[in-house]
């Protein structure tokens, strides 16, 4: 089988989605590790971001791959979605729902996450890299109008991350199925670990706007 044939077949596209999806989920863990410095304190967070900046070239390579993964994941997903819509005969009828809503809404939640990522890059990423205007990184996140200083940003962030968790709830089990992990001796450990990625890591992200956007102002 040639590589083009593999990547353009329906199963091949799904394998690509599963691999890029899992890599992005791993990246989320790394991203959260950095974010948690916000709770350590202003200096710790600023120092951490500064450290990342000093890596310079390496960070740009990593960013290139992240965009590549997001792009190919979304591209394959969209092509499959179109194919699936074509395969379905649309008639005025009804059928009983017998699957999980996380599975059925994966394309929708994925689209929302994509919009979130676009705003995420155009605000935090852009500010951090090119438009600090003398603010500290900590201030941009916790106080500025593109950060959790704005309740609208905080609410959108919370909703988007919750949907991302919901997306991963289906995505991670689905990737296990697509990569053939289901049915092997690794199935159990894979399923046990999946909750870290679809529940605990998104929860960690959500804690940040909940604390800095709302609770810290009330207490």
């Amino acid at each position, binding site marked *: 089988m040639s590589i083009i044939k593999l990547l353009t077949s*329906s199963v091949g596209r799904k394998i690509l989605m599963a691999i890029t999806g899992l890599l992005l989920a791993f990246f989320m863990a790394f991203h959260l590790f950095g974010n948690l410095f916000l709770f350590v304190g202003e200096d710790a967070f600023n120092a951490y971001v500064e450290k990342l900046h000093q890596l310079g070239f390496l960070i740009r390579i990593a960013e290139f791959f992240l965009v590549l993964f997001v792009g190919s994941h979304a591209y394959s997903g969209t092509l499959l979605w179109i194919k699936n819509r074509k395969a379905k005969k649309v008639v005025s009828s009804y059928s009983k729902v017998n699957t999980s809503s996380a*599975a059925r809404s994966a394309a929708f939640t994925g689209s929302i996450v994509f919009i979130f990522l676009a705003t995420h890059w155009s605000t935090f990423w852009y500010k951090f890299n090119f438009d600090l205007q003398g603010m500290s990184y900590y201030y941009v996140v916790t106080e500025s109008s593109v950060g959790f200083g704005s309740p609208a940003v905080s609410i959108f962030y919370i909703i988007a991350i919750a949907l991302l968790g919901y997306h991963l709830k289906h995505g991670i089990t689905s990737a296990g199925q697509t990569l053939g992990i289901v049915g092997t001796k690794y199935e159990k450990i894979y399923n046990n670990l999946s909750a870290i990625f679809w529940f605990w890591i998104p929860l960690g992200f959500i804690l940040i706007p909940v604390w800095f956007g709302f609770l810290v102002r009330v207490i």
Partner: protein
Amino acid sequence: MNVNLKIWRQGSDSDKGILKTYRLENIDPNISFLEMLDILNIKLVKEKKDPVTFDHDCREGICGSCGFMINGRPHGPQKATTVCQLHMRAFNNEDDILLEPFRAESFPVIKDLSVDRKSFDRIISSGGYVSTNTGEAPEANSISIEKEYADEAFLSSACIGCGACVAACKNSSAMLFTSAKVSHLSLLPQGQKEGKDRVAKMVATMDEEGFGSCTNTGACSAECPKEIGQINIARLNQEYILSSLSGFLKKKNE
């Protein structure tokens, strides 16, 4: 018992179908669903009306001919039951029952509730076979197969190819069907001769036939009259990954 049937009537795939209502009275609750349709058709013929076309053959739940949507579910409300094995006692007196054909672009409507499932045959003929020598039947015990593999292969081979999985799927994907056929043969020593080419060919045909892709929602297994499990799809994926890897390795060696 009395039932109100709403049946999808459609002359051919290019026609626009409509739902027509029929009422049947004094039906014995212990007759099968297809016998109830026979009664309806006898009535329609007597009235010089066009009888309802539906597929059926063995009426024992093993041939895979029958199958349509009953109240939005392939093969009706009873779990692990084909339409022919469904009885009127599964419904209540004065129930409204909606009958539609399996809906998928790859299953063109022949007439009414009967759909053309030749796309399944083409998936099978592209790889769902084994190569054997002609001549005398081989000694039955000459190939020993471990019990767990034999059992798993048997469960996969239970697929009757009725198409309920495609009808149940929101993407009209044929993955459960294809994966059951791939699993069945790849689990047994007799299926090894075609090796990993089988899965590549069958997936390629499945894509060409216009079926959707699997998004792992599991609707197919929930509605399958033979309870073919999701594990088959995982096995197909494993086979597919191994097939592409072995394809790359072969190319390198050449």
